[in-house]
């Protein structure tokens, strides 16, 4: 079929051309020597002026990591990673006192990415109904360090702590010590343990009891340097009755080598607290032949520690050569609630193995999983999830819906859900479907004057609508754009 050939060529074309964040910023940086050893860990800890207990914590993680093996159960294939081939720390050289001193190159980089580092500017030009522009506090992480955090003063007034975790370690050591590693333990898994040893920065958020965070908090991650790994660590604590919405975005230059990203995100929600965590993941996916791209091995987990607490994960995944990521909820508090909304789009030779875990431990806990996977090109897209109810989790309730859509005949879509019920009052429902975009739907659209591409975009947008609705408005705009980019030319 000639149309199919055309599709393949188009798909091939978009992957190389359409990644618009693939530029490199020429900026002087300060790096740790290549490779990983106890000295690297000590170097990072010293760079950050960390307290002694933190260094001990890191070294313990490093020693445990040495005894662990890389997991191989995910449906992804990649050549063996030589962990000695990466730089574990890279920071822009200049120290800053205020935003005005930020290297212009850096400012330009963030401007190109559409991320305002100057306060009062809006993301993606979103204007609210009342005419005001929405405000988002941004923490920008460049390679291994946080370069700027905006709106600090205003947040402080509300009592919200939002700062780089390296700073929090110095300013709020007790809070960090109390919560760090309590959701994702040091030796949780290979990549999380590696992160525990070498994490360099990330965001720390603490919302005090009863406070509704006055604005969206956002972190933008960028890997710039060659052969660097980015290991950020995010820790968010919502104290009793508080609410916070946190957004995360990421991009990287186009390089032929694979770069490593192994982050750990820990969320803690106390009684009646709610955390909404949204991610638009757009790391460089590699070229059409699968050369280069980011290995995205991320551990994200939320702990609904308190009663009636709620954690909701929303993710739009379009980037990375390999994604290995399972944002999870531990529903420990009675009546707590976990949600997971995901859109994963893979193209070219991308491999996605993503999903969630909902661990029902408390009574009357509920969870919902909505996952939409779209595979095009020669990619493989896997949903892998676990829903489990323990003996005493009476009244647990889960609804899972995971759908996949295939575009083209060289890709694969897979679903691997694990459902474990250990008590009779747990009610679990799971449904999954895989199908092709219906010819009838496309015909209907085209008959009304839409081009084939527009028709596909419309159908796909309808398909992923459930998830997009969950995104904060600032990100929904960006996500919608990403979806149209990823699918442009996928019509066959």
């Amino acid at each position: 079929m000639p149309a199919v050939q055309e599709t393949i060529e188009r798909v091939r074309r978009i992957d190389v051309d359409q990644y618009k964040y693939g530029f490199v910023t020429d900026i002087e940086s300060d790096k740790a020597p290549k490779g990983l050893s106890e000295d690297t860990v000590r170097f990072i800890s010293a760079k950050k002026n960390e307290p002694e207990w933190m260094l001990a914590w890191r070294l313990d993680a490093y020693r445990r990591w040495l005894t662990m093996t890389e997991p191989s159960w995910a449906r992804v294939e990649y050549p063996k990673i030589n962990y000695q081939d990466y730089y574990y720390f890279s920071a822009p050289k200049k120290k800053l006192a205020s935003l005005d001193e930020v290297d212009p190159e850096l400012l330009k980089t963030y401007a190109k990415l559409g991320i305002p580092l100057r306060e009062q500017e809006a993301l993606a030009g979103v204007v609210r109904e009342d005419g005001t522009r929405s405000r988002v506090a941004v923490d920008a992480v460049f390679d291994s360090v946080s370069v700027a955090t905006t709106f600090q003063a205003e947040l402080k007034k509300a009592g919200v702590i939002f700062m780089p975790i390296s700073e929090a370690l110095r300013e709020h050591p007790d809070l960090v010590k109390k919560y760090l590693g309590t959701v994702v333990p040091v030796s949780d898994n290979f990549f999380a343990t590696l992160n525990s040893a070498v994490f360099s920065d990330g965001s720390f958020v603490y919302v005090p009891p009863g406070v509704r965070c006055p604005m969206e908090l956002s972190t933008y991650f960028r890997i710039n340097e060659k052969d660097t790994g980015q290991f950020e660590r995010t820790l968010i604590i919502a104290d009793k009755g508080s609410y916070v919405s946190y957004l995360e975005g990421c991009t990287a230059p186009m390089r032929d080598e694979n770069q490593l990203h192994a982050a750990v995100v820990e969320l803690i929600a106390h009684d009646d607290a709610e955390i909404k965590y949204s991610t638009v993941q757009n790391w460089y996916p590699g070229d059409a032949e699968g050369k280069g791209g980011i290995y995205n091995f991320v551990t994200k987990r939320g702990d609904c520690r308190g009663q009636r607490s709620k954690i909701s994960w929303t993710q739009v995944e379009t980037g990375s050569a390999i994604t290995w990521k399972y944002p999870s909820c531990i529903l420990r508090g009675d009546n707590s609630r976990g949600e997971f909304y995901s859109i994963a789009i893979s193209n070219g030779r991308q491999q996605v193995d993503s999903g969630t875990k909902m661990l029902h431990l408390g009574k009357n806990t509920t969870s919902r999983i909505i996952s939409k996977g779209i595979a095009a090109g020669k990619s493989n897209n896997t949903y892998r999830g676990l829903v489990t109810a323990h003996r005493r989790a009476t009244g647990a309730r889960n609804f899972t819906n995971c759908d996949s859509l295939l575009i083209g005949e060289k890709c694969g879509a897979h679903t691997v859900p694990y459902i474990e019920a250990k008590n009779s009052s747990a009610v679990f429902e799971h449904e999954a479907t895989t199908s092709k975009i219906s010819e009838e739907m496309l015909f209907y659209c085209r008959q009304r004057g839409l081009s084939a591409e527009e028709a596909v975009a419309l159908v796909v947008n309808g398909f992923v609508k459930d998830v997009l609705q969950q995104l904060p408005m600032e990100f929904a705009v960006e996500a919608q754009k990403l979806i149209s980019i990823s699918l442009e030319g996928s019509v066959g």
Partner: protein
Amino acid sequence: MTAEVRAIKTPAELALAEAYTAAKPKLPGDGKVIALREAAFRRFDAQGLPNRRVEEWKYTDLRALMREAKPIAGLPDAAAKARAKSAGSLIGDIDVRRIVFVDGAFVPELSDLKNLSPGLTIGSMAQALASGDPLVAAHLGKVAAADDSAVALNTALMRDGAVIRVAAGSTVELPIHLVFVAAAEQSASMFTRSLVVIEKGARAMLVESHEGATAAEHQVNTALELVVGDDAYVDHIKITSGKSPVVHVSSLMVTIGARARFNDFSYTTGNAVVRNQLFLQFDGAGALAGIRGASLLNGRQHADVTLVADHKAGGCQSREVFKAVLDGQSRSVFQGKIIVRPKAQKTDARMLSNALLLSDEAETDTKPELEIFADDVQCGHGATSGALDDGLKFYLMARGIPESEAESLLVQAFVGEAVEGIEHAGLRDALMVNVAEWLKARAG
């Protein structure tokens, strides 16, 4: 994910290795069969007993469930044969041709081989292996080959079983009932292997019954290779019942030809541990398959259905429906995987699994997987688990039906959804009678 290097063997694995070495000279078959056994045993030896580190056996850890390997059963004595006489009665009084195996060996005097309809041949696997039967040589170990160490162990130690052929175009009216009885007084292990070839356009129905006739803790490893030819029409029903504390591992390997119709049903109420694994391969276009099953479990019973439906050809339809009813501290496992290969366009596959928990101590684990490589397909799966619907129970009780009866009715309706997929009305009724009896015993 079986690549893991293992140095330490469990006592059961060591005993099986010893048993194989000792049994080798006495097992039927020469030349090619010996080579087949040797290769299979090496595969088993490398992987060991299936355990929770093997993804497909995640929820049924045979290494833990089989602490020791029982000695291989000897030929059945008169007493064992006498005990086996009433086996297979669960199917009621429907008309069948009975073929009986006791302790893993064919028993001609209990079997009915008279007046075979034209095109039907029935023999014993032991004889076929010994005589180098061409049908067995052509198919054994080649039907939907599964890389599974339980199948490998079966191939290494297979002793007897049925070899059935239905010639092209023939219709076998009378269902063939293969009755496998573990009747030895002392605990023993049994390895049976059967081959059934239904050729192009032929029609046949096969019923397998597996049960223990004593209180011994037998270990049964049984396998059936089934070839469903192009345009053939085949029903296969497997019943595992009885109160004996048997560990029962069963593998069904099926290849389905073009435009064929295949209906499969697994009914499990008995034994201590049951693993039913089904490997289905759709090799010809346009086939239609209904794969269903029901388990009724209580006490500490453990039943596992693991199904792989591999769509290699286009335009096939498959429907999978599995129901589990759990009482006591029982545990049911359902793993169903639908694979659609790149060339299998227009596949339409739907899989449904439901678990009904009647007790707070029961557990159900479900893993319905889809692995899709073709874009023009319709595939779906649904899975639910939960207790009986209080609303429905209330509705019945409000109309004067006592609680236990209301529960029974709801359970019967639940299981009935799967059972109604069986085409043979007599067998369908017999199974529903058994469900009712199970519920009656439960109500005490």
